[in-house]
Each structure stands twice: as C-alpha cells, then as structure tokens.
C-alpha cells in the first residue's frame, strides 16, 4: 500500500540559504516516524515545507497519493494534515475553549473524530481550565493545548515538532502515553525529536537528518543498535 505521506527530493531555502537538500521520507498509514537530528539540522523546516509554510523550491510531496507541494497551508490542513509547531504558539488571548474552536473542522472519513469532551479525556489537565486564557498556562499545559487544538481538525496525519522540548520528565512521560494513545486511534504521526529515549518509546521507524540531508532511514531498533551512528549525528 502506498504511504500516507511521501516526500521525494525535497529542497527548501530561506532566501539565498539552501536548508533542505533532496529530502526523501515517507510515513506509512498508522505509523509513527521519528525525524531526528541536532539543532539546526532542518527538522522544523521539513515540517514547515510539508505544511506549506515554507515554499519548497524542488521535489514533490504527496499526501494520500495527491500532490500537496505548492499548496497553501490552509488547504493542506483541510486535506487532513495537522501541524503542531515547536514553539507552541497558543493564542494567548483566547481561552482554552476558544483555542480549540479555532482548530475545529468538520469530521473526516478515515480519521478519528475529536470533540472537546474527548480531548479533555485525553488531556485531563485541560478540562479544569476551559476558560483560562492560553497565555496564563504552564509550558506543559500549553503543549497539550496545541496538540488538542490541532486534533480538533480531525487530521489523519499529525506533524509534531519536538513535543518533549523543555518539558519536565513526568510530563514527557505523559506526552509519550498520549502519542501512543493517538497511534492507537489510527493516526499517523511524523515526530521531530532530539531525545532518543522519548522517540524510542513511541516511534516505529526513525530517520536522521543532518545539514538538510537524510543520513539514516530505518527501524528504531536498528538505530538503537548502532552506537556509532548515534554518536555521529545525535550526541549533543
């Protein structure tokens, strides 16, 4: 069966600087792929390019068999890709409920259907603060809210950009459980991560990016077994 997301030969640039060089990646249906690499390797740029927030300068991106490169972000979101940015970007003036309502889209075939109540079951912390402004929440709560907000669009594929970054260890554990729960719902996930332990606990496959090029693409088990590879690209 063809993969849900299929990136092939993707180039992207900021002005004169070429950031991505011929990235090829795919995320299968129901699969969690961890995109790993150091700071500045190009993980976020890859996600932004998929989302249409950075225009690709070459290559193709297919979602469910359809070309999406060159389309606008809102069209890509409507096709069923949900994007959770690394810097959270909750709407700080809006309450939790309002944040959720911005993300709301109609139900979609072949994707789990989310309501605020279902999301509050997934993120119990949020249930207690429905009317709190996003700006008045802790970092962990904001991270939960961003994910919940994106889920309101009933995506089939979730792009999660470093969800564990800057969170306390217990919250990172909760985050891992959440991701596994989402996978259990049948969601496909492209996860960017630097934390190997975290990625290892949720992902089926891993890809390593360095200076805008893919250096490794294989199973999580293979990456865990290869100490030299980890030392070369992942050590901090």
């Amino acid at each position, binding site marked *: 069966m063809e993969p849900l997301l299929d990136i092939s030969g993707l180039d992207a640039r900021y002005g004169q600087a070429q950031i991505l060089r011929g990235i090829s990646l795919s995320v299968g249906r129901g699969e969690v792929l961890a995109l790993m690499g150091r700071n500045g390797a190009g993980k976020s740029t890859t996600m932004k390019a998929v989302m249409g927030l950075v225009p690709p300068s070459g290559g193709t991106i297919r979602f469910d068999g359809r070309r999406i490169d060159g389309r606008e*972000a809102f069209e890509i*979101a409507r096709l069923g890709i949900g994007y959770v940015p690394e810097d959270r970007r909750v709407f700080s*003036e*809006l309450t939790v409920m*309002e944040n959720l309502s911005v993300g709301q889209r109609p139900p979609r075939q072949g994707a789990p259907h989310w309501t605020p109540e279902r999301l509050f079951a997934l993120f119990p912390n949020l249930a207690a603060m429905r009317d709190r402004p996003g700006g008045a929440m802790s970092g962990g709560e904001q991270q939960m809210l961003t994910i919940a907000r994106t889920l309101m669009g009933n995506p089939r594929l979730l792009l999660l950009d470093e969800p564990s970054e800057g969170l306390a260890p217990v919250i990172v554990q909760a985050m891992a459980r959440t991701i596994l729960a989402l996978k259990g719902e049948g969601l496909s996930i492209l996860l960017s991560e630097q934390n190997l332990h975290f990625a290892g606990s949720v992902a089926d496959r891993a890809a390593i990016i360095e200076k805008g090029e893919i250096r490794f693409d294989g199973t999580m088990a293979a990456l865990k077994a290869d100490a030299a590879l980890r030392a070369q690209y992942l050590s901090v």
Partner: protein
Amino acid sequence: MLDLILTQMLNGMASASSLFLVASGLSIIFGVTRIVNFAHGSLYMLGAYLAVTLVGAFGPASPLGFWGGILLAAFLVGLIGIVIEVVILRRIYQAPELFQLLATFGVVLMVQDIALAVWGPEDRLGPRAPGFKSFVMILDSRFPSYELFLIAVGPLVLGLLWFLFRRTRWGTLVRAATQDREMVGALGVDQRLLFTSVFGFGAALAGLGGALQLPREAVTLHMDLSTIAEVFVVVVVGGLGSVGGAYLAAVLIGVLHAFGILIFPKITLVLVFLVMAVVLIVKPYGLMGRKPAATLPGAAGIEPLLTPATPGAKLAGLAALLLLAAAPLAVSDAWLLTLTELVIFALFAASLHVMMGPGGMASFGHAAYFGLGAYGAALAVKWLGAPMEPALLLAPFLAGIAGIVFGWFCVRLSGVYMAMLTLAFAQIAWATAFQWVELTGGDNGILGVWPSAWAVPKAVFFYLTLAICAASVLLLRRLVFSPLGYALRAGRDSPLRAEAIGIDVMRVQWAAFAIAAFAAGIAGALFAFSKGSVFPTYLAIPRSVDALLMVLLGGVQTVSGPVVGAFAYIGLSEQLVKLTPYWRFTLGLAIVLLVSLFPRGLVGGFLAWRDRRDAGDPAR
C-alpha cells in the same frame, strides 16, 4: 452654567460615537491585516455621500426611507471595502509598511476625485432623522434628541462588537489571527476570506459612522482627511488594536473638543495636544494599547547601505550644479520659474529623506514644515512688514519650532504609529491655516509676498534659490555622515544595541526631526517668495505625499536619490495636471499600480529580479 456644561458634555459624546465607529473599524482591520488603512476617512466620507443620495431617493420623511438609506449606505461602503481589499490590498500584504500606507493613500486620492465627479464640489446637507426632529429639555436647555440617539449608538456598537468578538466563531478567528495569522492558516482557516471579511466589516463601520452624521453636519469633500486625522489621534490615544480604548479615547477627544470650542475656541487643538502628550508620556502605546510586536524591516531593509559619494558621483553632482547654474543663459523666464521650483522641491525631498532614510522615520505630514516655512515668510511680510531677507531668515524657525514640538511626540512612537501621528499634526497645521482667517486669510491665502527689488529678476531669484538649496542639501548630506548621522542609523537598524552603546535614540531622532523640519521650512520660505503668495494647500496632505513619492522614486537609501526623485516626480506631475482635471485620481491610480506591481519597491523589485537571474532560474 451647569446645564451648559452638561449639554457640551453630551455634544462631545455624540460626536464621539461616529469617531468611535471609524476608529474601531481602523483598529480591527489593523489588528488582523497589519495595514493602517489611510483610506478609512474616505470610506467615512463615502458613507455620508451615499447616505445623502440614498435617503434622498428613498424619501427622507419616512422612517423606512431614512434608516433604510443609512443602513444601505453602510452596507455599500462595506462592499466597496471588499473590492478595495480584493483588488489592491491582497497583493501587498507582504510589502514593506511604508508601501502599504502609500497604497491606501493612493485610494484616498482616487476616492476624492470620484466623490468630486459624482457629487460635485458643493457641500451637501442631509435631512433630519424622522422621529428625532425634536428637542429634549435638559435642565433649562434644549438638546436635540438625535444627539441623544447618537450618544447611545457608541456603547451599543461597543456592546455589539464585544458580542461579535467574544461569542461568535468569526470573532474568535479574528482575535486569533490578530495574534498569529500563520498559525490560524495552518489550522485550516482560509485567511483570504477572513481578511476580506474583516476589511469589509471595518469599512462598513466607517460607512455607518459617516452616514449617521447626516442630520448633524454638512457632507463635504474635506471630510475624509479631517476625519482620518482625528481618528489617528483617537487611535494613538486609545491604543491601536483596542476597541475599548478607541471608545474611551473617542469620548475623551470628543468631549474635549466640545468644551474647548466653548471656552477657548482658538486653542482647542492645543488642548487635544496636551491630552495626547500626557497619555503618550504615561502610556506610549495608548490608554489600552500594548507594545506592538517587532515589525518586519520596512523599506529601509531592502536597499543598499548609504556610502559617501565616490569621486565620480561628486563630479556628476558638480556637473549637474554647473548645468543648472548655466540654465538662465539658455532658457526662458517661464522655464526658469519651473526650474526654481524644482530646486526648491529637491531641498524639500532631501529634508524628508534625512528622516526616512538614515532616520527610518516615515512622515506622512512633512508638508506641515514646508507650509509653515512658507507661512512664516508670508506672515513676516504681512504682519511685521519685513523685507525678504529677514523673512527668509526667520521663516525656517517657525517650521523648526513646530518640528521640535511635533517631533517630541512623534519620536515616542515608531513605524506606522509615527506615520499616523505625523499625518495628524500636518492636518492640524492645515486646519489652523485654513480656519484662522484673521491671521492667515484662510482659503484666500496671503498675497503679495514678493522678493526684494534686487531679487525680482527671475534669474537672480533662481541663483539665490540655487545657492541656498544647494548649500542646504550639502549640509544635510554632511549631517548623514556626521556622528549624529551615524547615531541615527544605528538607532534605526538596532535601537536596543544603539541604546546599549550609549546613544539616546529618541533624542537623536528628535534632533533629526527638527533639522528636517527646519530644512523643509527653508524650502517653503523660498517657495512663498517664488510664487508671491501662500495658501493652505501648501501644508495639505497631498503635498506631504508628493514629498514621499519623490523620496521613494529616487530610492530611500541613496543620498542623491531624493534630488533626482524630485526632478522626476515634479516633471511627471506637472504634465499630469496639464493633461487631466482628475489628476488626483490618476496620481492615486499610479501609486496603487506602482505598489501592487512592485510590492518591494522599485529597487527591491530590481534586486529580486537580479537574484533570480543570478540563480539561473528563468522559470520563476
């Protein structure tokens, strides 16, 4: 006495309502699109004109005819707003701020001529509102009941806006987009639709504000600029982006005006100033505003750095100067007069350039200082009986002092805020010249401002002008490469770092503002003597736009640019005025086309083209 105070209070609150409608529309549009719509006053004016026509057609005596006409007028203005957004603004959301402001300014010019063509130059009086023709007794005074109705409109609309923004999905999306447009798009919201609807809504509010004024005051072709200037003051005082702040400020300004006119009519404007001063000192971003997020680099970011002239450029400058100096030998007196004006405008443009280029301060009201220079000269001649020489010497000081006073306010703000304030000040200066008839002769101007006998021959006056202007431009140039100039550029490029190395950015900008005003005053004084008369149009907003266009045409970041730009622009516009009576429309259209075809400016467009060519990618 008590009832007088009360009625003035109510009067002020009644005029506050319309002001609030326009200001809140402007604020909402700015929040989402980040564009300050200079054409908002024009939409207000269109609302009033359309209401005159529609109410007249539907029958002003019947409530349905009257109110139906008012509401339909507001609706139509909303549609006009949508057209403006789709046709023009949509293309320039990525453009530098200055170009966006300029484009909406182009719309102002176009609407002026459209209104003139459709409704004619005569003021129009609207009918009174059915059901609100009587008076209410307040203590012992009669107070028109329509005023009471208007007073209620303000809070009513405020409540409606609150409901819309807090209780509907559209409102939630608008608030979300105000904070982070890109994220809203990534969540599947079509921003284009959102932007268009927001613009249409804000336009309809302005249209309603204008239409509701119908029973209160005459509809005139001046409404657009006088309203936008007042609205800018309201928005600066209330805080851009805050609807509640807009209401608060509108009431404050409205009531202040009402009392000012009662107690000391001549210094109402001063009162408004004082209030604005207090607010800006205590809360630089207005009563309920917040510090704006860092904006993208404006036009300044695109162009190459300023460098001192190369020997070649110096030679070219000298050659141009010699060529000009030789002109009286070759051309007729009529041409010499045009050349004199060109030289004066080159100085005018160069003075604005000092602010905009190295200073990074966009002024939409630089004509104020040009005009004050001209009036300074004319007043010295008329009231002090001064001959040309001392008048020329004194006049720039009037402009310079105004620059010191106005500049003090302006440098407290930056970007679009500052541009708005400069425009408000220029409009106030214009209003003073226009209305203080005893001193300035009002619309009739001041005539008989002639040079001293020795300078009457056209060639002599030309040489005098050339000498003064060339010296002034060279001095301004020196300034750019002096320590003050470097400090100015440091403050423009990185205010925080400049502060860190001990530069008082605000002070430096203030000094540059005042110097630019002084230099513009020199140009204005010379202009007064070359024309022999002064009129309020010398300080009107279109003249400020002229200066902006000259600078932009020549390039913001080249020192010789404004001089070249002045020659090119004046040459073109003189032809335009000769060709068509609707030169404002044509000029406005030209501005809009220029900005939408080259949203990054001419030089920016050229650089982008060169980049693409060098990348060897002809497909893009």
